[in-house]
């Protein structure tokens, strides 16, 4: 996962470099077979990046909530959840969620930030049970349903964004 995230970063970086190079190329009077293609692609990428991150986190949270529901009868199981907004903020800013920063023992070491999954927190207990289980089925069910709706909303956002983009691209044809 860390590798993938970093790859994405590199990709974006390369794209930006490409854009700069292309602008330079154009200002110098050059012509391209497909002018502005990389520009459009990177814009599309940027437009969808936020929703993509949000959707990934929603899917992860759905898994965590499914774990809670599956273990509703397991003795000593503690219900877990993630702080969605904090995790999304970190993901969008490109910060690692799992606090996997590389330790540097010399100022000449390269800094590195691993991107772990969003940190799992423990849910506050509402009614304690004798077997030490902290799953409250009502909370879990409602959170699960809410998360599912948010996921669907994310999918709808992306769909409409794509439609908007394709409408913009096909005008005048």
């Amino acid at each position, binding site marked *: 996962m860390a590798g993938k995230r970093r790859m994405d970063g590199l990709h974006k970086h390369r794209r930006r470099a490409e854009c700069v190079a292309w602008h330079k190329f154009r200002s110098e009077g050059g012509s391209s077979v497909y002018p502005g293609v990389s520009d459009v692609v990177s814009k599309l990428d940027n437009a969808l990046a936020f929703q993509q991150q949000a959707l990934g986190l929603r899917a992860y949270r759905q898994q965590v909530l499914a774990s809670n529901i599956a273990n509703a*009868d397991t003795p000593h199981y503690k219900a877990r959840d993630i702080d969605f907004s904090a995790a999304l903020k970190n993901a969008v800013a490109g910060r690692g969620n799992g606090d996997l920063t590389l330790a540097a023992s010399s100022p000449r070491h390269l800094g590195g930030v691993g991107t*772990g999954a969003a940190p799992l927190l423990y849910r506050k207990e509402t009614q304690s049970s004798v077997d030490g289980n902290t799953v409250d089925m009502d909370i879990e069910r409602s959170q699960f349903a809410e998360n599912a709706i948010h996921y669907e909303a994310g*999918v709808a956002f992306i769909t409409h964004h794509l439609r908007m983009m394709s409408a913009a691209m096909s005008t005048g044809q």
Partner: protein
Amino acid sequence: MSMFSVFNIAGSALTAQSLRLNAVASNMANADSVAGPDGKPYRAKQVVFEATPMGAAGGQGVRVRQVVEDASPARMVYDPRNPAANDQGYVAMSNVNAVEEMVNMISASRSYQTNADVMNTAKTLLLRTLQLGQ
């Protein structure tokens, strides 16, 4: 893709709950048994659940760690004409508590339904994702 591990997690819960339901059925069927296959009175069986790591980081499925036998004493019923009766005329019956088993059954079936619902929701979400951009 963490949405696929939802299937594994909910599936493990379905398996575990159906095992629990199996144990309940076995207990209820033997509520009035005098002797089990080993010649001793039937003892109620209970399953013990355990969380087990599954899917991406933090995913926890559930599995049955062991099936334990209820240690409570056998129910003694006065029936001197029964061939299994002891010198005082008491017969050792199974230690199944019917009320406990009914509660167990309802709890197991509710959990089973909930996890089936979870699977259905995950399926819907995945299908929506497949239709992305259409």
